[in-house]
């Protein structure tokens, strides 16, 4: 048994693009391109892929792969999948975004697929790593068909056995799987959303593995002989977004005495830098996160593609900050309210409190206002805040994702800056990101992305990175799990250890 932290809401792999759903889907279905625990691309149902020219990709499919019902896997299945994805009715979060660059898909032969993109799209393989392939006959199946299990036929290491909404998913091993055999014949995923209860279930032995071990229990579990932990720095950054869009009358900026202030100091990069310097990231990582976080200086840990080698987390430097504030014309500081969700990220509200604590001490009296994400994100997107805390997980595993969504100029037409709730805007950054997005050459693209990051974060502080979350799994003694940056909990990756 495995204790999951968030409920699995559907068995339809294309219905709702959500980590827990995808995680379960990855047991039953497979993607053309796999990602390893570091999100590095690996052959999946596709043995290989290459860009024939800047807009054409040729994908060679694996032979001798069979669906759970015994029929062989072919290019037709891939085409059906691509056809179904944009057309799942009522989907609250579809996978269509990953398909949008593709303008045409053909089967060159039963085991080769040719994809054409509108313009150069270097990230196509990364996108493909999110798309679960379903058999042709499931193309017309509806979401309820999947939930009932009727349509749940994949090629993955596990077969569907049972799904009880809100309670559990049971899978049995697929003996004919082409890849390595999983260690367990039957897996029960139990949804235990309360984190303390999840830990208790692990300690009581009711489950053998849990995901998202709460930070409060890490220290204790580490000492506990019955369990062991597996952790990794994830692809999720916790950052602070500042209102750098409004010239004046930012809603929650006040002067040091708490009276409304017309000028918006947050527009000034020096002020943003000063705020960054006021935060003791090490203290947050060790005290609030109990070591389950790594101070961040950019969007993704350095191991990821497109990150900068030069950027390091800002040092805690109240003196330097004071100087910068004075330079910017705010020697006496000013007042802020930090808005934060309180049920979205690990310890989100506590981090905010700590940040506020540091800023207050550094001469910027800061209040914290926490709210559930249901309220937070709506208000945040309506730009009702001046200063907010949020997080970003780069699903594609590449630095282009945060660059494009967080610090590119808000532009619905291009799909840029969708999560840019501070309305940071810099033409230089935009240009670099835009070019990078159409550069097929990985090295060249990487350099451009790193440069953009250095400018957007290192220099201009479009967002203030705080830390990367560490994802931790707990397993009973005798089991081992290789922690994944994408936070998926994959039963077939659990090994028995001696």
């Amino acid at each position: 048994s495995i204790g999951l932290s968030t409920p699995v809401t559907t068995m339809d792999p294309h219905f709702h693009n959500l980590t827990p759903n995808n995680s379960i889907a990855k047991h039953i279905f497979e993607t053309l391109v796999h990602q390893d625990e570091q999100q590095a691309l690996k052959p999946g149902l596709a043995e290989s892929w290459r860009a024939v020219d800047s807009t054409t990709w040729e994908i060679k499919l694996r032979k001798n792969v069979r669906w759970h019902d015994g029929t062989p896997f072919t290019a037709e299945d891939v085409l059906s999948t691509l056809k179904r994805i944009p057309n799942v009715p009522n989907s609250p979060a579809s996978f269509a975004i990953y398909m949008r660059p593709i303008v045409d898909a053909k089967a060159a032969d039963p085991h080769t697929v040719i994809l054409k993109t509108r313009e150069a799209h270097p990230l196509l393989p990364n996108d493909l790593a999110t798309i679960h392939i379903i058999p042709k006959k499931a193309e017309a199946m509806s979401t309820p068909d999947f939930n009932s299990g009727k349509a749940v036929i994949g090629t993955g290491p596990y077969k569907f056995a049972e799904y009880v909404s809100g309670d559990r998913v049971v899978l049995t091993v697929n003996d004919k799987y082409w890849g390595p055999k999983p260690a367990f014949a039957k897996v029960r995923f139990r949804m235990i959303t309360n984190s303390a209860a999840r830990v208790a279930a692990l300690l009581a032995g009711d489950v053998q593995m849990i995901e998202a071990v709460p930070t409060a229990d890490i220290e204790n579990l580490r000492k506990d002989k019955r369990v062991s932990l597996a952790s990794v720095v994830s692809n999720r950054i916790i950052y602070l977004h500042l209102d750098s869009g409004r010239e004046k009358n930012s809603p929650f900026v006040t002067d040091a005495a708490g009276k409304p202030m017309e000028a918006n100091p947050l527009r000034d990069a020096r002020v943003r830098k000063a705020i960054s310097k006021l935060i003791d990231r090490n203290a947050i990582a060790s005290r609030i996160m109990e070591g389950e976080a790594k101070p961040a200086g950019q969007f993704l840990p350095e191991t990821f593609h497109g990150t900068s080698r030069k950027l390091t987390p800002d040092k805690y430097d109240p003196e330097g900050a004071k100087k910068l504030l004075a330079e910017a014309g705010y020697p006496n500081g000013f007042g802020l309210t930090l808005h934060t969700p309180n049920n979205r990220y690990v310890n989100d509200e506590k981090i905010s409190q700590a940040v506020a604590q540091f800023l207050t001490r550094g001469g910027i009296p800061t209040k914290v206002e926490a709210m559930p994400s249901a309220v937070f994100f709506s208000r945040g997107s309506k730009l009702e805040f001046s200063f907010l805390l949020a997080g970003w997980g780069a699903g594609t595993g590449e630095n282009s994702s945060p660059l494009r969504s967080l610090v590119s100029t808000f532009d619905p037409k291009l799909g840029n800056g969708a999560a840019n709730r501070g309305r940071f805007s810099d033409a230089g950054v935009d240009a670099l990101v835009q070019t990078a997005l159409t550069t097929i050459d990985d090295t060249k693209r990487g350099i451009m992305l790193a440069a953009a990051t250095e400018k957007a974060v290192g220099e201009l502080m479009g967002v203030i990175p705080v830390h990367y979350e560490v994802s931790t799994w707990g397993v009973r003694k005798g089991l081992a799990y290789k922690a994944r940056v994408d936070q998926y909990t994959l039963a077939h990756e659990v090994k028995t250890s001696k």
Partner: protein
Amino acid sequence: MTVYVLRRLAQTLLVLFVTSGLVFGGLYLVGDPVEILVNPQADQEERARTAAALGLDKPVLEQYGLFLKGMFAGDLGKSFVFGRPALEVILERMPATLELAFLAMLMSVGLGIPLGLYAGLYPDRKTSKAIMAGSILGFSLPTFWVGLLLIMVFAVQLGWLPSTGRGPTENVFGFSISIFSVEGLRYAFLPSLNLALFKLSLIIRLTRAQVREQALLDYIRFARAKGLPRSRVIGVHLLKNILIPLVTVIGLELGSVIAFAIVTESIFAWPGMGKLVIDSIFQLDRPVVVAYLLVVVFMFIMINLVVDVLYSALDPRVRIAEAK
């Protein structure tokens, strides 16, 4: 009586209508579901697509109009999260909640009334004082805290009972029920105890207070003068006279135990409606929340109707107001 019941049922429709409006308005004020549902990576186009797919791009009044139209056709809309009819999602979870509620009420009524009677009849005994003090424990600590404590003690430390989850289910008349097996009861015990504690205390205290009110009245003395056995004096004469407020509170608690097992269900990972609705509320899954509220309000109306009808059965002086 018949007229009365029929009138109440007619009022029910109106009540449901008002409820749906309130929830619609309330959730509209809370925030935009798209923000929550959509994958954070999504760009503006995908957001717009989601809004359109879920019908959230229309003005809210129009959405409400559409919903009402559906409601009269018996369709409460599809869950945003599950993509299935909201009512179906709820009804699927209902048996789990109902069995928990049933066990919890059984515990609290079955224990609470006798203990309350005892404490009320012998207010000066040590045992009674202990009962009363103990009952304070039952409601002074937050449920979630007590819940975890129960898990820690009975599952982690002692290992007697499973920590979380629901036991194996059997299909009984089309509902999956877990409490007909010993294994199922083992799973259900801690959560229902957790739920029952508060009600238990309340019922003990209420019973005691009512007993203290009534036990000295002349009709009790007369019943004793008739030579009735003590059990009958207490179990019939006394009990029936104190029952009206008790039945009210039991009805209310039954309703609340069904409707708001939220915390207990999430701590014990019990796959019931409460757990569903809290997720749905946080995800702004409006159709589920609306459908849930309609179901719950309907249930409260029914419970309260039964309780009101019971009043006149319990006390002939209470005539249900029937406008002439």
